[in-house]
């Protein structure tokens, strides 16, 4: 509904543009004129839709901004103005009070405040109305949608349970086949394992016997070495004795 009320972004482009020589000032001038023209068109609640100019979020100005566009005054004029301003300084508050359109400004402010109040009231009423509309349309849509949703959920659950049952049977069969194959394979593996265990036992006793035999041989070797050493000593002694006896005989 709302989409229909929206303007298309390509609608109503009535700005004349020279693409060869773009002039932003001219385009902005045309935009401003177009806005002013649209604002002049009578439409319900027009005054409430008026857009106030932007104001930057800043603290109030400490000093009034001099007009940047003002033409330069001559040195003499400046000097005279300065002297006059200096002389008038003590009376400044009084002069301001007399000159400045305070009353008009208050009235103007009141008018602005009144305008703002009207705008706020309008926006408030519009928002309330819109909120009610949205709430009722949402409730209606929900009421309409709930039975259809229930039906859809029932159908979906039926379809899902039949699908699950089919899949369950298939899966059971497959599991039976796989477990048979696994059992056969396991039996073969257990037989192999028993053989391997016997073989390991035999190897163990063989290695034990070999260790015992090697130990005996080692002891025997040590005995033989000792005997050899004793015989070498005896041989040496007998040699010395032989030399001594030879000396005695020769004498």
């Amino acid at each position: 509904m709302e989409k229909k009320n929206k303007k298309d972004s390509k609608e109503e482009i009535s700005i004349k543009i020279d693409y060869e020589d773009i002039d932003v000032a001219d385009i902005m001038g045309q935009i401003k004129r177009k806005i002013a023209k649209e604002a002049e068109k009578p439409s319900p609640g027009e005054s409430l839709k008026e857009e106030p100019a932007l104001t930057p979020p800043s603290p109030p100005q400490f000093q009034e901004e001099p007009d940047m566009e003002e033409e330069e005054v001559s040195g003499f004029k400046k000097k005279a103005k300065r002297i006059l301003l200096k002389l008038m300084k003590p009376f400044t508050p009084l002069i301001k009070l007399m000159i400045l359109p305070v009353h008009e400004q208050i009235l103007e402010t009141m008018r602005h405040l009144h305008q703002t109040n009207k705008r706020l009231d309008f926006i408030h009423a519009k928002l309330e109305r819109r909120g009610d509309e949205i709430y009722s349309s949402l409730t209606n849509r929900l009421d309409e949608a709930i039975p259809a949703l229930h039906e859809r959920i029932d159908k979906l659950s039926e379809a899902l349970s039949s699908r699950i049952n089919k899949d369950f049977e298939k899966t059971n069969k497959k599991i039976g086949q796989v477990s048979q194959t696994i059992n056969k394979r396991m039996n073969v593996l257990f037989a192999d394992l028993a053989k391997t265990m016997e073989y390991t036992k035999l190897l163990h006793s063989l290695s034990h016997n070999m260790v015992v035999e090697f130990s005996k041989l080692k002891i025997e070797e040590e005995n033989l070495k000792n005997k050899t050493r004793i015989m070498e000593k005896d041989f040496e002694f007998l040699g010395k004795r032989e030399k001594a006896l030879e000396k005695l005989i020769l004498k």
Partner: protein
Amino acid sequence: MKIAFVVQRYGLEINGGAELHCRWVAEHMKKYCEVEVLTTRAYDYITWKNHYPKGEEVVNNIPVKRFSVTRTRNPERFGRIQNHILENEHKEGDELKWLEEEGPLSLSLIRYIKDHQDDYDYFIFFSYRYYHSYWGIHTVPHKSILVPTAEHDPIIHLKIFKNLFRKPQAFIYNSFEERKMIHTLSQNEHVLGDVVGVGTEIPSQYSGEQFRRKYQIRGDYIIYIGRIDENKGCHQLFDYFLRFKEEIASDIKLVLVGSTVLKIPSHPDIFYLGFLPEEDKFNGLDGAVILAMPSFYESLSMVTLEAWALQKPVLANGQCRVLKGQCLRSNGGLFYENYQEFKEALRLLLSLPELRLAMGGNAHKYFKENYTWEVIENKYLSILNQLKESK
């Protein structure tokens, strides 16, 4: 020639504002003269708390001398003093007290400038509103150049600044509007000055398509890049954009890039992406149809220049004189001062691709003529040479 750039904060982590402006200019001027940066140890611009180590360091081949901040800023007290001077009759002493609170209060920096003024040919001060610029310029007025980075905010009307603007030897303005404002305020037309601004680094490759793929954005979008803050006009932008969406049948989306201090409205066509790396930022700009620049106060919008470098038109807040002036001079963007104008301008830009194309072309031309680094460097050199000759 030896030049000191004096700025409130300095570092690679500081990625915006006058500080980044200063760093870029310092790094580019390094080619032509000996450059040094004098700054504080602060990183946080709210409190000016000492963060960086004291002494000297080198940042991107630029020697940087950091001085301690004597007293941190108390935001509450500062707000109270500022409100007082903006809303009541006051004396110059009150304004100087405000300046002390504004900070960054670094007495050692001012003392250094005073003691070592003979070591430098010129001091280029950034941002008129801070303590270092005011007292630095008063310390070495005969060697001062000011880059005011002034915005159209009430503080500029303080009496102390009226006198300050007559002290430096030269001004480097960011825009014609800024120059006009300062001339009107302080009648300092006799002081040498030029509108320069700042250049910008554009990556050699960028892709809007890559951005769309990465962040899952379909269809045309407007992009806003910057701090998401009420003072930057973001609140108004959200309001106007939502009203526009309500009134006009359009698929346009709003993409927001930057850190936020505002609550962003939840709407299917508003995408908040947070702070993005430079590569993604340029990809995002490339993919956008328009850059939205809703800020009320800008002395020079760097992101606008970046958009123009990428041939993207801008929809700016016309309440900001600088942005409005830039749009009028470049013919590279439209502006608005109320919702009706926002609506019409946006409708026009969205419905006429040929207008966007033509404006993008104008913007790019304007960027090339005024904001490439070659142009900026030459303008700085010209001011320095003029000062040298007039000595």
